[in-house]
């Protein structure tokens, strides 16, 4: 019994390790994608696009690992919550990889254009969401609810920055119609980053579930999206 349990513990540790590996890989994709955008680096952007296959393969391999543990170990309690959490979290991480690809494609599209003004907010948002991703995954491994709280706080800051970018770009579009195509492309990048932040919040919420057994939406900004009275007649909250 002891030995079986030990082997299962090792499998769970391995599972967490693979998730961290995938998270680190996807975070690097994001860093490169925004780097390619800032530096007009088409080669780097293409690397990001090619890397997506690897991220997808990692996603499938980890899911398979989870399914195997569910089938063979019939986990209970925290073990069950851990495996359920990992299965959900890989979907969020995989999605962050997809957004990185979207940013890389934008980098290729804008490679020959001079920006109408130096990129400032996008690199700042990128730093914030990369930090959030790292914090969320470290929270999972370290069973750290304080890190969970920090991710959620940080999401508010990202949202503020996103609204600021939106306002700025609206103004620029009105004043300088000739930059509209580029401004639209860049505002979409900011939107991708804002969505990536939301995925890191999802991850943080799952970590909270894993630790407490309570399944709940923690970020106030996210809750609002799900309250029916708040969204009367409005299109459903964006879900990826």
């Amino acid at each position, binding site marked *: *019994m002891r030995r*079986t*349990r030990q082997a*299962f513990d090792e499998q769970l540790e391995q599972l967490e390790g693979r998730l961290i590996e995938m998270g680190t890989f996807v975070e690097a994709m994001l860093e490169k994608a925004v780097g390619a955008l800032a530096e007009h680096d088409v080669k780097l952007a293409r690397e990001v696009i090619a890397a997506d296959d690897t991220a997808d393969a990692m996603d499938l391999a980890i899911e398979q690992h989870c399914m195997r543990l569910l089938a063979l170990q019939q*986990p*209970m*309690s*925290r073990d069950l*919550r851990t495996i359920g959490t990992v299965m959900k979290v890989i979907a969020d991480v995989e999605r962050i990889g997809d957004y990185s690809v979207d940013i890389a494609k934008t980098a290729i599209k804008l490679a020959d254009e001079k920006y109408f003004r130096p990129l400032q907010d996008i690199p700042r948002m990128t730093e914030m969401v990369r930090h959030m991703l790292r914090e969320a995954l470290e929270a999972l491994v370290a069973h750290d609810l304080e890190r969970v709280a920090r991710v959620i706080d940080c999401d508010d800051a990202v949202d503020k920055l996103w609204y600021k970018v939106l306002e700025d770009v609206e103004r620029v579009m009105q004043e300088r119609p000739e930059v509209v195509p580029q401004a639209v492309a860049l505002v979409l990048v900011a939107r991708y980053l804002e969505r990536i932040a939301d995925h890191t919040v999802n991850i943080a919420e799952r970590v909270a579930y894993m630790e*407490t057994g309570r399944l709940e939406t923690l970020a106030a900004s996210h809750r609002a999206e799900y309250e029916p009275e708040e969204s009367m007649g409005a299109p459903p909250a964006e879900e990826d």
Partner: protein
Amino acid sequence: MSESKADRLIEQPEGEIKIETRGLNLFYDAFRALIDINVAIPARQITALIGPSGCGKSSFLRCLNRMNDLIDSARVQGDVLLDGGSIYEDDTDVAQLRKRVGMVFQTPNPFPMSIYDNVAYGPRLHGFGGRDSLAEVVEKSLRGAALWDEVKDNLRKSALDLSGGQQQRLSIARVLAVGPDVLLMDEPCSALDPTATFRIEELMLELMERYTIVIVTHNMYQASRVSQHTGFFLLGELIEYGLTTEIFENPKDQRTDDYVRGRFG
């Protein structure tokens, strides 16, 4: 009882309560096998009792129909209420009690007689006097135990010729024949293969509509599959009792967590 213990023990189930224990203690001579058990078992649901060997779960089950009376060294303190009335009164008719609260054991125990006589045994013993004919009671009970279709053409065959799984369903039919409200099951599937186990589990879910079922099982997955409430026993104490989903997904007590995750030993 301390405050913290009360907190973790009783999550009072909603709805009608069939059985309630109050400060139940069981001694075998000087050994205290059950310690202050307070629990409310809901009617027409399945309650599973889990815990390592020797934790008191079977002893507890036997308190619910006074089977421990048969053990000379056993002494019960506290009370067990069935539909609100004590079963440990001086004038309790124990034979009647065991009709209302029937028990199915670990190993199927058919009498060496025909299938029909096995099921008719209880009604005959208790002075059969219902509206239905004896043959009707036998058929109803065998149907109730999901055995009728397999044996209806061979009712005179010896019960010993049935397979293990059929014998266990016959044991259940025998209990049903005397018209109980409560079925106590003490590891009813531990001697059965997975297919026979599956049939008994399905049968339990059918029986739940009419009977209150309390099952002792070593198989946590069985507890999680069939029960709505689960109690975890350890060293004579009821450590945690609550919704089965809570016990297996998010138990409150570390000892329960260790047990359901296989971290004991």
